[in-house]
């Protein structure tokens, strides 16, 4: 019983963590809370869907699911392409909206409000193109396998937990071991000094949108695989994402992942013990508690 809660929590948490890593990076470098980040998840999920359908149609039925997973080669290819397209979408939104505001020296609250607008516009576009009816990558039913400790999990679920961890470790290594990563951390701490030491901050901003968009697409596609694809899926995840970012400490990648896992586990626990209708309240409780008790989060700087 408790093992099953743990698994549910880990799954939701890995997904939240993955989305939160992208959010914490854009938050720390662009210095505003991007409320349109959830829509990058939704767009990523829908782009994966459309591309996998397109690839499936072009290749005929030759791309069967990779046993034992429900995931097909078509969806994997589509996912990779969708990551690139979501990154392009993030860059486009920045170019059309946020970059203009930055150039004008707009205050953070103006940029946050603009991101609200972007969020609504992007979500409405999805409803326009895809309707609000839920969609699925695969109608195939998966049988949960019994695992030690009386836990049952589908192969997809285990694959996604693994994938999330690989992605987060990759981002962490990028930040700590590469020139790009060090430059990103430098810009996040002090953009003016970063320029003085020769870092092209505009290039770093582009890199952050690309990484954030690709990670959002991964998280969105994961969420679509585990539950369903809806235009509101990303928006509904926004609160848990921010809870994870703030709990982990803004700018901290390991913090965002750990925060995501903790929020996911708390949610699963709340669903079991209090009731499913309280799931959304958990993220609120976490944000409030962190801001009151430890505003710097687990590893980062103040929110």
């Amino acid at each position: 019983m408790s093992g099953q809660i743990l698994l549910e929590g880990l799954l939701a948490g890995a997904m939240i963590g993955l989305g939160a890593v992208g959010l914490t990076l854009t938050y720390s470098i662009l210095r505003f809370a991007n409320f349109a980040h959830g829509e990058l998840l939704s767009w990523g999920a829908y782009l994966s869907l459309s591309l996998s359908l397109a690839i499936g149609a072009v290749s005929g039925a030759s791309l069967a699911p990779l046993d034992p997973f429900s995931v097909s080669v078509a969806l994997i290819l589509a996912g990779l392409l969708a990551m690139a397209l979501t990154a392009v979408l993030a860059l486009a939104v920045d170019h059309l909206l946020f970059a203009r505001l930055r150039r004008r020296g707009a205050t953070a609250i103006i940029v946050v409000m603009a991101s609200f607008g972007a969020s609504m516009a992007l979500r409405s576009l999805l409803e326009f193109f895809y309707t609000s009816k839920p969609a699925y990558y695969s109608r195939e039913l998966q049988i949960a396998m019994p695992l030690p400790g009386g836990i049952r999990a589908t192969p997809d679920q285990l694959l996604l937990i693994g994938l999330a961890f690989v992605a987060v470790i990759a981002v962490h290594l990028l930040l700590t071991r590469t020139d790009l990563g060090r430059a990103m951390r430098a810009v996040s701490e002090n953009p003016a000094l970063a320029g003085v030491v020769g870092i092209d901050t505009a290039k770093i901003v582009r890199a952050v949108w690309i990484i954030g968009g690709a990670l959002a697409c991964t998280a969105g596609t994961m969420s679509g695989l585990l539950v369903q694809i809806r235009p509101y899926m990303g928006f509904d995840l926004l609160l848990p994402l921010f809870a994870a970012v703030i709990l982990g400490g803004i700018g901290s990648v390991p913090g965002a992942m750990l925060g995501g896992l903790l929020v996911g586990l708390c949610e699963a626990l709340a669903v079991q013990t209090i009731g499913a209708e309280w799931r959304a309240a958990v993220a609120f409780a976490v944000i409030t508690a962190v801001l009151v008790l430890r505003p710097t989060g687990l590893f980062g700087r103040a929110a």
Partner: protein
Amino acid sequence: MTTAASAAPTAPLATRGLVAGYEPDLPIVKGIDFTLAPGEFVTVLGPNGAGKSTFVKAIAGLVPLHGGSLHLSGRDITGLPRHELVRQGLAFVPQTENIFATLTIRENLQVAAAVLPKAERQQRIDAMLAAYPDLASRPGALAGGLSGGQRQMLATARALLVEPKVLILDEPSAGLSPKAVSEMFARLVEINRSGVPILLVEQNVRAALAIASRAVILVDGLLRHDAPAADLAADPDIGRLFLGAHADGAAPAGEGTR
């Protein structure tokens, strides 16, 4: 006067009619002609609010220019983005927040080394660590844990890492202990003797005149006086005329202005 217009094309650093300020209609630097000759060590002095810091920040690309031109070793670098200025050979050490506190000492050097060709980076970082034993003893430590003097050392090492054509420092003595200040100034003399021209903004007038070869005095955004440092140091009227009533005691040794 060494600021002859004919010297501009080849001088390591030259400004012509430089106008700068945070707001276009509120210039703080109001048209400065200045030339830094090869191997020179010039200190920028002046009363509080004269525009000393704004002048060097404008050169480093941190304050918008609204007129005039900027030349580095004969190249017109007016209006280049600040990250390009470093690549052209202009190194700047800001007065405050001049290191990345959340990066390690080595990482602080690595981010700066990224403008160098890949093959030279490691060797330049090693050379800087060798020149600053205080930093070399624990390159993996977070720079945020360094003392004021060590931070200034790291900021200077980072600026020198790229072998700049010109080194500009904005009040490096601010907030340091008297011992750290004299160490810092001894370093600057050494760096200058190795051939790097230096432009130094200082509140600490006597100490600055003791190490610089020439001094320029800014008053209300204009260059009002330009003389060999030794002449100024020997002239008791200069302080009263240009540096305000408290000139001699304006900045007691080692005391910052913050």
